[in-house]
């Protein structure tokens, strides 16, 4: 298995982009035709397990898209291998941390409302 795949990253970038576009369109429709957003509505909606799961999918798509993009930037501009690996490792750690943080936020929110 190769350390950096070509096609897998290419597909992941496009698929996550399409997911983000779908969420953007959905969000825009909701803002245009849905009830006016208030804090209580937002907090009650996002406490439903399905809604929280949808938000988690959104976060996963954002983080995956960011990973491929930042990885591409580093493959281009960071030539020394040690520096490149260190930077990629740091970015992967931060993104994984953000994913865990988002999951924790949503999970505890769902539990708090239940």
């Amino acid at each position: 298995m190769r350390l950096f795949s070509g096609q897998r990253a290419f597909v992941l970038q496009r698929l996550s982009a399409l997911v983000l576009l779908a969420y953007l369109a959905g969000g825009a429709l909701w803002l245009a035709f849905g009830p006016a957003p208030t804090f209580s509505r937002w907090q009650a909606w996002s406490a439903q397990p399905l809604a929280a799961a949808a938000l988690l999918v959104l976060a996963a798509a954002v983080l995956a898209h960011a990973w491929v993009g930042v990885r591409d930037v580093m493959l281009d501009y960071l030539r020394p291998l040690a520096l490149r690996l260190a930077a990629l490792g740091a970015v992967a750690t931060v993104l994984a941390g953000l994913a865990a943080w988002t999951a924790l936020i949503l999970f505890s929110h769902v539990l708090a409302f239940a």
Partner: protein
Amino acid sequence: MRFRVFRFDPERDARPRLQDYDVRLKPSDRMVLDALVRLKEQDDSISFRRSCREGVCGSDAMNINGLNALACITPLKDLPEPVTLYPLPAFPVIRDLIVDMTQFFAHYHAIKPYLVNDEAPPERERLQSPQEHEKLNGLYECILCACCSSFCPSQWWNPEKFLGPAALLQAERFIVDSRDRATGARIEFLDDVYKLYRCRSIMNCTEVCPKKLNPAGAIERIKVALLRKSA
């Protein structure tokens, strides 16, 4: 007409320098190459490659007023002065406007730029239908001048690993050739994060191709072929 030319003589110069010239053109001088030939009459120390002087051999590719082009088919009348002449960007300079094309041709050879077909040859040649031949249009015309690859930012960052637009256009030329039998192996060879996927569809290659080919489009089609293969 005023010119500003990149000069570098490895025997004498520690680093490149720019030299300004006022070239006395004759009425028959219409292209940048004509001016360069005239310039060499004034200063015979300047070096550049040229051969066919009609946009077929691809020897005199250089950076003219910021864009890669063939000197022999770039009209002088459209160019603002001073006309700046630099060697092809990012290629090692041997002397003045002459660059080292070793890496460029190594990438070209890597894609096996010839038909691979082990089947017994027919009595005469391997024939193609007009429809099959149609697929080669826009691909086979490449003259390997390197205008595209030298103008590609992805090639600047990973010159050794990314094959570059010229080699990838030729890869597509053999992938779509009905007489070739190594299509699968060709596509598989390109499935690599560096060889193919460093392309970001910037389209600088297509912008500067003197033969009006579209390497960026060819690269997109290779990516689609790869998707089909793994789907």
